[in-house]
């Protein structure tokens, strides 16, 4: 197993060395993503400075949703976010260079970068999670801990699947980054809101089509034992891994269709 992964270990190590070569710019990049995380947080703070409860969440609950969604998104962004550079590779013909190497295309693209600067946003989210968990009134049980871990892992998988599906679609669209961004970054935005602020059709969309409600809102409601509703019963939170598996099935199909299209049409 270790041997099989050796090429990827070497690739990732080289990417990290490359980023460390310019320390000043690396530090600025990290500060930049800390800034993004803080700005996202400021939105939550401003809202709850004016209202006590929004969409069934108080400030602490909203903070938990914010933290879980941002952790999942920044981890996914760290691992596979650079798939959105695919159109650049396609236009430059660089995808052909990947094809003549003896590794799967997706594995090469995923390991073609590891954007360490995204640690900035991740650390803001981790801080928010610590504060939320410390201040919230949580009945700590093994089930709650298990759900938290499951949520972070599955949430990261869901966002990674979104990036991968978007990447697969890029083979068809090439200039369609704006369109696919509405699912990836739009999904990230929807994930950090209380689903109750959305009208019904949109809630169904963010739960059953692009399942970002599973990333943070549904688990948070379950962990805090808030009253669920018709569209968000508490047990639904435990379906988060299922949502991740289904997302990856769709992502895999999108990716395969994309590469087949590339080989069929010649990019």
């Amino acid at each position, binding site marked *: 197993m270790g041997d099989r992964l050796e090429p990827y270990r070497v690739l990732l190590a080289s990417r990290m060395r490359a980023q460390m070569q310019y320390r000043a710019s690396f530090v600025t990049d990290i500060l930049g993503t800390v800034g993004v995380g803080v700005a996202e947080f400021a939105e939550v703070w401003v809202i709850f400075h004016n209202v006590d409860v929004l969409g069934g969440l108080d400030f602490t609950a909203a903070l938990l949703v914010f933290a879980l969604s941002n952790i999942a998104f920044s981890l996914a962004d760290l691992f596979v976010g650079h798939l959105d550079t695919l159109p650049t590779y396609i236009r430059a013909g660089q995808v052909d260079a990947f094809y003549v190497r003896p590794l799967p295309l997706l594995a090469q693209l995923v390991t073609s970068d590891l954007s360490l600067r995204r640690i900035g946003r991740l650390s803001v989210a981790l801080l928010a999670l610590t504060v939320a968990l410390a201040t919230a009134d949580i009945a700590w049980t093994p089930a709650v801990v298990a759900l938290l871990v499951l949520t972070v892992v599955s949430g990261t998988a869901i966002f990674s699947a979104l990036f991968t599906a978007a990447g697969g679609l890029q083979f068809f669209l090439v200039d369609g980054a704006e369109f696919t961004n509405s699912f990836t970054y739009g999904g990230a935005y929807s994930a950090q809101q209380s689903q109750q602020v959305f009208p019904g059709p949109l809630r169904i969309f963010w739960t059953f089509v692009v399942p970002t409600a599973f990333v943070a809102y549904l688990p948070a409601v379950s962990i805090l034992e808030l009253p669920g509703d018709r569209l968000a019963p508490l047990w639904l939170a435990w379906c988060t891994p299922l949502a991740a598996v289904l997302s990856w099935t769709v992502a895999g199909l999108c990716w395969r269709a994309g590469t087949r299209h590339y080989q069929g049409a*010649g990019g």
Partner: protein
Amino acid sequence: MSTIIETRELVREFKKTRAVDRMSFVVEPGESVGYIGANGAGKSTTIKMLTGILKPTSGHVRTCGLDPMRQRIAVARRVGVVFGQRSQLWWDLPLGESFTILAAIHRLDPAAGRARTRELVDQLEMGPQLGTPVRSLSLGQRMRAEIAAALLHTPDLLILDEPTIGLDVLSKQRLREFLVAERRERGTTLLLTTHDMGDIERLCDRVLVIDRGALAFDGTLAGLAATVGAQRLLVIDLAVPTPPLTAIAGATLVSNESQGLRQSLAFDPKSTTAAAVLARVSAVAEVRDLAIEEPDIEDVVRRLYAASRP
């Protein structure tokens, strides 16, 4: 070892055009094949089908006995490819690191990878550049590095797409000498696309000419020369206006400019030499400057086409 390349009735269509049209040829181990044709004739499309980047519309293709679409990764292990405009190197890292990463990608044993890198770096005289970031290499250095990268896993087949484009005369010369030596030592099969007749002359014992997607010629360079005449052009600047140089043995006057101040003579390098033609000209007129031009591929293909359709 089995056949290296085999295509039969290979066809590739793009929307309405047929980029490759019923292409059939076989390349045996150890051959060195020049694959020439005008821009857009279908050379790159063929290479992409040989390496599993493009799916053929119809027909049969085998590379190292494997189906490139179904066994792309196995093909990649046995083939080295250099695309003139696309890089296998990591532009933001020192050159040496690209070789380390590629050795890992090809799962070479670390010691064997280092030994092979050292060997290629020595032969291509790239030692001083190993610590240089790839983005800072000159074009000639980068091309040598790309070829070293493609040969790192000791492939059975090396495919070079325009390897000498943009290189100065000296860099071209060094690259060709290296490729000749590498082939002599390892018996690597070579498939080369180029616009440079010099590449073909010095590297290839067989030429395939593709025209509008179809194979227009398959044979030796001598055979091609016999069909179309692979002549060189000696352009001579003379000290004083001189009557047309029509009586030079082994050469024919092609053009005569500025009242005979600049005259161009075509000659066949197989039957005479540039030095002999120059000596004969010098005997009748004072030469101030000269240039030797090689016919370009487009010209050869055009003449081939004209010869086949009188």
